[in-house]
């Protein structure tokens, strides 16, 4: 990829001044390159450290434990042997990263069309349910077609779920933030009904617990690092990496991507240019939902195999996807890195911090604190931009000043 895939050459200069969400993003992307997201993350980590310090623990030691707990110290002595603790931890971190990449892309794609998809969680859950149903119901199929069926069905279900919000926005102007939040709740309660007592997808072997059936062996994704059945790292990881490439290709190399971005920058201008805004709103939401639905499918077929009703409201990967996309600034590479950061944090805080040293409740909440701080700082982009620009002005002779504002490289 080029150094700057995020700034489309056709971005109209006026857009930067109109103050729309997409325009602000574009401005920010021009201003800070990679520095702003790194600053954002660093600030969040520093403030998270202050919280750890306030509880009477050494934040540096805590971060070291998180780093090791996430298996990132694997790079100092790499091995493919899963019996090594570092290798196991890394495989688990990558498993989380897989989900977060796709949930991040689900948010990022809608963002590029000027929409805020808060419904990643609902779309993820719908994908999870459909993958579970297809994976159980069609037991006995040959593995490859079965996996393709379950993954395809779940992806389409996620797309349809998000498509509802896109359709409502395009036809009656219902704001996607409201409709996706409501669709999340429908997905949550729908799942509780499906897997709950007497529900159609409840476990047939044990009717006394509200847990779904297990996905048949023929639909389980092959594990390439770890032990099949013991939550090893499955091939879904490569699917997520491929999704990053697909995301970048769609946005930057296709007519569809051009139209989506044009609508995102300025719907009026896009419409004036002959692009159907309504069509693109629906398409962008559906593609967003497809990423989230795919995440649900890979989780279900990759390592979960079953899901309980109590697990449904406790799941929050779809919301973490928002932080991932914001940190990754809605680009493919950024989302990939953001997903790794949050995947490592999520796994490292839960499994790296010893419960004898740091209270497990604090350890678990540290991830969410840092997530919240990232969202806060990204939301407060103006502040970071201000600091960034002030730094520029402090320099006696700035070459960048000779460039006209907003000119592309």
């Amino acid at each position, binding site marked *: 990829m080029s*150094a*700057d895939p995020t700034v489309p050459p056709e971005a109209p200069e006026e857009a930067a001044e109109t103050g729309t969400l997409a325009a602000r993003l574009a401005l920010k992307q021009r201003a*800070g*390159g*990679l*520095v702003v997201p*790194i600053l954002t993350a*660093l600030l969040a980590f520093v403030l998270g450290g202050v919280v750890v310090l306030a509880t009477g623990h050494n934040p*540096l030691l805590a971060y*070291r434990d998180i*780093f*090791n707990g996430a298996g990132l*110290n694997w790079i*100092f002595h790499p091995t493919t042997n899963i019996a090594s603790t570092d290798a*196991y931890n890394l495989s*688990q971190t990558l*498993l*989380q990263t897989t989900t977060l990449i796709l949930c991040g892309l689900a948010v990022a794609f809608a963002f590029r069309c000027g929409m805020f998809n808060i419904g990643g969680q609902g779309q993820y859950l719908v994908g999870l349910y459909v993958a579970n149903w297809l994976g159980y119901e069609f037991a006995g199929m040959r593995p490859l077609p079965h996996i393709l069926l379950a993954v395809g069905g779940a992806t389409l279900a996620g797309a349809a779920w998000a498509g509802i919000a896109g359709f409502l926005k395009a036809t009656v102007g219902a704001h996607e933030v409201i409709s996706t939040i409501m669709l999340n709740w429908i997905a949550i*309660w729908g799942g*509780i009904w499906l897997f*709950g*007592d007497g529900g159609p997808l409840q*476990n047939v*072997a*044990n009717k*006394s*617990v*509200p*847990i779904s059936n*297990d996905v048949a062996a023929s639909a389980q994704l092959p594990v390439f690092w770890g*032990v099949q*059945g*013991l*939550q090893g790292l499955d091939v879904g990881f490569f699917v997520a990496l491929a999704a990053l490439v697909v995301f970048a290709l769609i946005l930057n190399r296709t007519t569809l991507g051009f139209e989506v971005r044009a609508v995102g920058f300025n719907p009026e201008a896009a419409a004036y240019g002959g692009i159907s805004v309504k069509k693109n709103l629906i398409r962008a939401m559906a593609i967003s939902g497809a990423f989230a639905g795919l995440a649900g499918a890979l*989780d279900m077929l990759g*390592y*979960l*195999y079953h899901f*309980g*009703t*109590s*697990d449904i*409201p*406790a*799941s*929050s*990967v779809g919301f973490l996807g928002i932080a991932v996309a914001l940190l990754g600034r809605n680009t493919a590479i950024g989302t990939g890195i953001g997903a790794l950061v949050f995947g490592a944090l*999520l*796994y490292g805080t*839960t*499994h790296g911090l*010893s*419960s004898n040293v740091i209270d*497990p*409740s604090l350890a*678990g909440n540290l*991830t969410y604190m840092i997530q919240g701080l990232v969202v806060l700082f990204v939301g407060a982009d103006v502040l970071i931009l201000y600091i960034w620009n002030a730094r520029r002005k402090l320099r006696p002779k700035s070459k*960048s000043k000779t*460039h006209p504002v907003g000119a592309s*490289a």
Partner: protein
Amino acid sequence: MKFSRGIMLACAVALAAVVVTATAFGGAKAPTTQKASFTAALVSDIGKFTDKGFNQNQLKGLNVAKSKLGVSTLALQSNSTSDYAPNFNSAIRKGAKLVVAAGFLLAPTEATYAKKFPNVDFAITDYTVHTSPFADKKGNVLPAYKNVEGLTYMANESGCLVGVLAAKMAVKNGGTAVGAVGGLKIPPVDIWIAGYKYCVHKIAPKLKVLVQYSNDFVATDKCQTVAQNEIAQGAKVLFQVAGGCGLGTLKAADDANIWGIGVDVDQYSNAKRVLTSGVKRVDTGVFDAIQQAKAGKFQGGSDLVFDLKNGGMGVGKINPSVPKAWVALMNSYKAKIISGKLKVPTGL
């Protein structure tokens, strides 16, 4: 290229970060091996160890085992579904001889690990081994799961005792109904309500027993809504059977100036108008399983049953406004249950 400077700076930052981490973390030593010979682990469900009830109470049992039996302990919290397997893995990796799973949500994962690690003992709270996935359809424990012990609780017995007081109080206050607010409609919840309902009707056959579920064990507002609904239908006493969520039920009872009944642990101090609490000693269960396993008397492939007789079930602090005669009546029920004269149903 105006971006090159930014990228260079970013690379410099990243490089510095890598160097710092390499020097700071590279020399980190592996954790020292445990000194005590026996290690017991407890894996929470997604209710977490901070749920003021089910999980937290089991953690208490683990900590008591640590101080009284001198065993090493590992408390592993699951913040999400994907934490179950790594928590079992890390317990076994760190040398746990006994892994206790805190509830039915962990049953499928525990089954996978129990099969894979036959030399490690496993126990599971609130779940019988005589059902799937540990047993065949007839309830015979499969050979692969002879290392799994179920820890089951006769909560219907305690449910009956609090039902006696609830019925008395409702009748005294001229009410026509009492209520129960469950978490999920699952056997560990329904067994409480079954005993409660049975004994409410023993005392006052005409009282209606309202039963509704919040579908949540954590969010207090959901239980509060369901509770308010039952209060609107005339309930004068509410029995909460939803863990941390049920604190919302107790609050609703406070607000409406009726009575609430706590569950699992003694919740007398969690609200102003708590009549009493149905106490289920899941801490005792964890402790007993560890004690057995440490002494080499672990009974894999069977259930360890806790009831009023062996003190695994009980009743919490009773509000002083309850007349002595009622307490005596309740104790007569307790004696009848223990002697086997009164059989309380276990299901609704």
